[in-house]
């Protein structure tokens, strides 16, 4: 039911559809149609659901709006515009919403100035920032084109009056759909759209706008909903891309750090000076700060011409940077992910990626931010920072040139998001369970939702087994199990729904102070947890040394001259995709063959050197996994060179460590990277046989083992808080009180303990495991990989050389990602007691 648009219409065919006023305006302004408009406008006009994927600056937005504006103008001319919403536009970014409003207002103003049209066409924006007064105005006189975010849409769906105005929406436009489909904001939106459409006589047309993404068919299904048709317009190849990988130094390992760093900033500076406007992407917010700091320090003349832009900065600062960028006042902006999305950033002629962007799709999306017009080439340079980066980016650039994108995954049946909508649905009307399920299953992410899961969710939301004072919080719906019906309960629930909906978790921000109690700024909790006294890091453009932490407060001292020594902010780093990881492992095999044979044509000298050193330890590649076993300091390390991307590695690592912990009766520390993982344990437990090591990677019982492995981890506890808040189990805002994040965290810890014990199928718990295993990790690919291994399609070799191989260095450098405990708590207690008492008595 998904098909690709094949008919490219001529100017004449499209102009024919337009009313004269629009036709004249368009002709005067643009002269001709862009490729995506040629494919899309007529189809949308004919009422087909359409997904448009096309580069920035290709007239994508207008191709989505043109058919609708045309129709609305026709009505306006006849004086038949009614007081209702015709076009619903949803985008994930408030900033984008304001852009769109401006970009629509302008042409409309021109049209109205040149022609006499009796009815005014109204455009209205509604986001979390919209004032009470504006909202009331919108309810009285609804905008014909309504621009909003997924969260605000879910709110207006439950606004008794305003939702009436949405009942005859004819066009639904979802912008930046690629940034929604693979996460819970997208799941949330998909349900909102089904709830909106439920009961409508005339089904609206859905139009999606997307950047480069794969698989297109899945995004189309996500846009249209289950079992509906959708037309895909894919003109992403229309824009040329020029990608190069650059190494600032020839030798990526023996060059001293300070020299390498100088070379990096020199290279960066050279590129900035040679171009008009450069956009630099780093992979972390902290790196963004560091790069700006260093560039300014090394090149004082750039002061005022270079800025940072990332999510931790205040809204005012970000808007100011965006404005100056748009007006061409900046030479360079350094960003993490915040400028990936489609807000208008004006003219950028170069994109520099610092370090691997970890996925071909992301590389193309980022690089696509340069060369704003369709005929211009997007120019991207990837600066590599170490040898793994070099290998990775070499493969990545090759894949990008071939247009081979990594595939995204759409979350399946996220129950926490569904909980919110069930509450919203119950507020609207009474439902039969089957009837509600039909609506829910029309949303693509929920197309296979098991009835049993849904009933468990209703059971939780009803909370009927609690006494009165508990029910106010606990029971959010009324549910009759006999009759299989549910509906609203009480007056408290409506404000709970309004104030707590949404999918983006609050993060615990840790405040940073100097010893004399000056507030410096905030860092995220996972970062704070990793800091050790003496670590030097950059915050708000200045360097500080970490002294000590106390609860949710860090104490630092300023160290203006010191070189930052930030430990890797791993939780924040982007994961290498499975698809790209497999390509890199295939590349490793070819590179190994070349290095062995001595014919190293086409390989960078640094890569040749790297592989030559690795030969002694065996080069792991797509047909061979190596596991190194050796002792270092007080630990034995088992390093698994499983190049399957970090999300699959995350799953493999925990399963292997869990099996090891239980067969040997020990606790293990894990370091997980894109290229493999390290399982560390106390050396007194000794080495493993090759057979024992192979058993750690058996595909049997993978899912169960992963679930048990997660049971006692910090990750599970942290994620449970997010899921509990999304499921309305912990209300962030209740009776006008905001609950602090640290309080949420404490309550979540208790709730977690209780829920785990009383019901292993509690929806919030099921969802936490699912989210970790399927969204954060990649259990499916982990399983696929282990099955190849067990069938001998990939060989397993255990290497014992008494020391780590060069490929192991970056894996070991991570330090610790998590701890996996043995399940036998009594044995753990006994070992711990023994150890502690030995230390007490030993000296």
């Amino acid at each position, binding site marked *: 039911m998904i098909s690709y648009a094949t008919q490219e219409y001529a100017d004449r065919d499209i102009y024919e559809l337009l009313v004269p006023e629009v036709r004249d305006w368009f002709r005067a302004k643009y002269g001709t149609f862009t490729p995506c408009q040629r494919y899309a406008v007529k189809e949308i006009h004919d009422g087909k659901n359409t997904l448009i994927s096309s580069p920035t600056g290709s007239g994508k937005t207008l191709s989505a709006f043109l058919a609708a504006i045309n129709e609305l103008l026709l009505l306006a001319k006849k004086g038949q515009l009614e007081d209702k919403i015709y076009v619903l536009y949803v985008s994930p970014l408030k900033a984008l919403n304001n852009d769109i409003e401006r970009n629509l207002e302008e042409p409309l103003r021109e049209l109205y100035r040149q022609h006499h049209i009796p009815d005014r066409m109204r455009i209205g924006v509604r986001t979390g920032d919209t004032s009470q007064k504006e909202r009331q105005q919108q309810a009285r006189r609804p905008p014909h084109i309504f621009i909003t975010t997924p969260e605000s849409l879910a709110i207006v769906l439950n606004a008794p009056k305003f939702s009436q105005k949405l009942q005859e929406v004819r066009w639904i436009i979802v912008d930046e759909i690629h940034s929604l489909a693979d996460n819970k904001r997208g799941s949330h939106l998909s349900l909102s759209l089904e709830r909106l459409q439920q009961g409508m006589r005339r089904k609206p047309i859905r139009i999606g706008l997307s950047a480069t993404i794969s698989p297109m068919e899945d995004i189309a299904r996500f846009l249209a909903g289950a079992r509906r048709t959708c037309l895909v317009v894919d003109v992403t190849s229309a824009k040329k891309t020029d990608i190069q990988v650059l190494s600032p130094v020839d030798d990526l390992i023996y060059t001293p750090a300070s020299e390498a760093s100088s070379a990096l900033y020199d290279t960066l500076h050279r590129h900035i000076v040679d171009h008009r406007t450069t956009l630099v992407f780093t992979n972390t917010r902290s790196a963004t700060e560091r790069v700006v700091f260093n560039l300014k320090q090394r090149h004082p003349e750039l002061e005022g011409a270079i800025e940072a832009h990332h999510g931790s900065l205040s809204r005012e600062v970000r808007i100011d940077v965006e404005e100056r960028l748009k007006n061409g006042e900046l030479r360079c902006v350094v960003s993490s992910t915040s400028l990936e999305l489609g807000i208008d950033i004006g003219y950028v002629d170069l994109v520099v990626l610092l370090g691997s962007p970890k996925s071909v799709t992301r590389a193309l999306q980022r690089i696509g931010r340069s060369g704003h017009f369709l005929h211009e080439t997007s120019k991207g340079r990837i600066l590599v920072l170490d040898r793994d980066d070099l290998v990775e980016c070499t493969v990545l650039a090759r894949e990008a040139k071939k247009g081979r994108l990594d595939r995204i995954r759409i979350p399946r049946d996220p129950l926490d998001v569904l909980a919110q909508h069930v509450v919203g649905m119950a507020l609207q009307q009474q439902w039969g369970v089957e009837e509600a399920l039909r609506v829910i299953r029309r949303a693509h992410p929920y197309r296979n939702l098991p009835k049993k899961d849904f009933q468990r969710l209703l059971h939780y939301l009803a909370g009927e087994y609690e006494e009165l004072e508990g029910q106010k919080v606990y029971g959010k719906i009324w549910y009759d199990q006999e009759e299989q019906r549910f509906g609203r309960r009480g007056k408290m629930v409506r404000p709970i729904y309004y104030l707590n909906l949404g999918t983006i978790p609050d993060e615990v921000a840790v405040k940073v102070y100097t010893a004399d109690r000056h507030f410096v700024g905030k860092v995220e909790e996972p970062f704070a947890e990793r800091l050790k006294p003496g670590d030097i890091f950059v915050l708000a453009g200045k360097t500080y040394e970490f002294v000590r932490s106390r609860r949710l407060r860090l104490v630092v001292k300023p160290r203006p001259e010191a070189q930052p020594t930030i430990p890797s902010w791993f939780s924040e780093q982007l994961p290498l995709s499975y698809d790209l990881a497999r390509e890199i492992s295939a590349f490793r095999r070819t590179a190994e063959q070349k290095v062995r044979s001595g014919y190293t044509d086409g390989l960078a000298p640094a890569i040749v050197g790297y592989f030559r050193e690795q030969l002694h330890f065996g080069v792991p590649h797509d047909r061979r996994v190596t596991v190194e076993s050796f002792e270092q300091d007080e630990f034995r390390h088992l390093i698994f060179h499983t190049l399957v991307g970090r999300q699959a590695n995350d799953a493999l690592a925990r399963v292997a460590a869990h099996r090891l912990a239980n067969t040997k009766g020990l606790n293990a520390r894990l370091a997980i990277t894109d290229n493999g993982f390290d399982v560390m*344990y106390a050396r007194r437990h000794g080495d493993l046989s090759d057979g024992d090591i192979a058993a750690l990677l058996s595909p049997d019982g993978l899912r169960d083992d992963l679930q048990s492995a997660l049971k006692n981890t910090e990750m599970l506890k942290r994620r449970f808080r997010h899921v509990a808040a999304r499921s309305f*189990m912990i209300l962030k805002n209740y009776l006008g009180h905001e609950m602090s994040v640290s309080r949420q965290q404490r309550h979540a810890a*208790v709730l977690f303990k209780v829920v785990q014990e009383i019901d292993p199928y509690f929806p919030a718990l099921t969802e936490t495991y699912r989210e970790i295993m399927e969204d954060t990790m990649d259990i499916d690919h982990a399983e696929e990989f282990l099955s190849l291994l067990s069938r001998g399609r990939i060989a397993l070799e255990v290497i014992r050389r008494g020391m780590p191989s060069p490929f192991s260095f970056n894996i070991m450098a991570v330090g610790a990602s998590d701890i996996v405990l043995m399940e036998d708590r*009594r044995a753990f*207690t006994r070992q711990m007691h023994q150890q*502690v*008492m030995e*230390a*007490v008595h030993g000296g």
Partner: protein
Amino acid sequence: MEADQQELWPGWLATSERCLYVPGEETVVVADLHLGYEGVLRLEGVAMPRYQGDRIMQRLQRILDRYRPRRVVVNGDFKHEFGKNLQMEWREVGAALDFLSRRAEVVLVRGNHDNFLKTIAARFEVPVVEEHRMGEVTIAHGHRPVAGEGRVLLAHEHPVVRLRDEVGALLTLPCYLYDREVAVMPAFSPLASGTDVSTAEREDLLSPLLRSRGLDSLRVVAVSGLGLLDFSTVAGLSRASHRR
């Protein structure tokens, strides 16, 4: 090394059931039950299922069956909500009191959470006192300074030992603390979080008495799945954790 009971003072036994047993007086002491905890969380907006009530009742029953005491002393924080009595507390505290008072004489020592306990206790004609004296031992919750001579048995602090092994794995166990003059009981509530004795600074301590003395000299006896485990003293533990 592993034991079911350990004598803190002559005739005063710490047990792995998180209660003190005094055979000479046919008395059992428990503390910090925090019944109604879930209800308090619910009032804050947390959809907390009922959990503690049944578990606490079962454990009390086991203790009474095993030691057959003549007297049960609850050393404070029987219930959780400071400001009023929740319906849940009426029911759960009531059920616990009903059960205990049928089988033994009950003495309720007031804790800082017990402001409104009296109204529930009155139904069962059980007194609520500030302190309870047994021989040379004063039993007091510990949120306020304790006057008088002799030994003091406190609760309130919910002491735990948190241990870290060489790979960073954490083990947390509730514990008793004691020396010749002072003893501190572990919390009876399965949900209470506590003070980690080996890392707590003096100013982190909740009891004025402990704040003034410090914890260093106190011996640590942890409650674990293996029974009671002796961990030497607080000072010994912190030295050991630095050494490792």
